[in-house]
């Protein structure tokens, strides 16, 4: 049985703005893509990884906040997404806690160890 439905509050919020913001976000994403290509292929030593991750995080945030409407999403949806990211980090940090503190003899010869950090 179909009901005549009113506009949902969520779509009301989305109607307030036009499509322009999507183009702005798209342009920003392209700019950041070019930036990461340039900085990625430069030799910045150990800063390469953090910079690449930072730019990627900014790009991802733009997609999540604006394309995926996270800015006007209910709190539960935001919590779900953030929590999944947090636990992904838990997985990474837990494993890296192991890798960083293992006895060097149990690691491949090319892995960085405490000594190589000091060198």
């Amino acid at each position, binding site marked *: 049985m179909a*009901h005549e*439905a009113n506009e949902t509050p969520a779509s009301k919020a*989305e109607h307030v703005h036009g499509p322009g913001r999507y183009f702005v976000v798209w342009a920003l994403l*392209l700019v950041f*893509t070019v930036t990461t*290509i340039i900085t*990625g292929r430069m030799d910045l030593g150990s800063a390469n990884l953090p910079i690449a991750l930072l730019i990627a995080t900014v790009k991802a945030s733009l997609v999540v906040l604006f394309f995926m409407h996270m800015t006007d999403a209910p709190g539960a*949806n935001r919590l779900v*997404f953030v929590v999944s990211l947090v636990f992904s980090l838990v997985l990474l940090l837990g494993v890296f806690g192991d890798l960083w503190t293992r006895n060097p003899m149990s690691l491949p010869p*090319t892995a960085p160890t405490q000594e190589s950090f000091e060198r």
Partner: protein
Amino acid sequence: MSLSDAQVPVPHLAHHYETIEKQDYAVRLGMWLFLGTEVLLFAGLFLGYSVYRHFYHEAFHEASRHLDLWAGATNTIVLITSSLTVALAYHAITQGKTKLCAGLLTFTIVCACAFLVIKGIEYHHKFQEGALPGKWYHYGEVTAPGANLFYTVYFLTTGLHAIHVIVGMSILIWILARTLRGHFSTTYNVPVELGGLYWHLVDLVWIFLFPLLYLI
């Protein structure tokens, strides 16, 4: 396909929901939960990448230089643009512009195909060069220890991502079919939103894969 003659589609209220608002809220929450599971799925692969990059830094650095940067960059731009068009498609249908929505969805699907084609060409090059995962590796250009694992990680991550591109594309084709049949309107368009959300996730994963595999 004109809607002016037919009745404007309205959402169907399931028997156990009190209002459409609650039903829509539930459906969106369900979708975000599902996206959360996808994040955790790819987290495992990013873990694999991180671990082996940590072990074999030089090989990963060298091997990334041998990936086709132009293919990767083009794919990135293709996916970002497809994200734009799918977001615009949802925006269009919330304003009742069915034809515009259908056109934008089509463009998104074309982008998805383009992505897969470029990926396919890249894979083909790898097979020819011998830049293959694990025990199959026999690519002479990168000789640092652990190079084979770079390609293991490369094929696993881009492979699983490509599967998600195919799944996302299929969902969008289904949504497109329903749009063309006039199922959606200003009052009923949640499936378009959900299909778009899945597609954005596919884009998100690539936003991280691209620099990690091709650049650094």
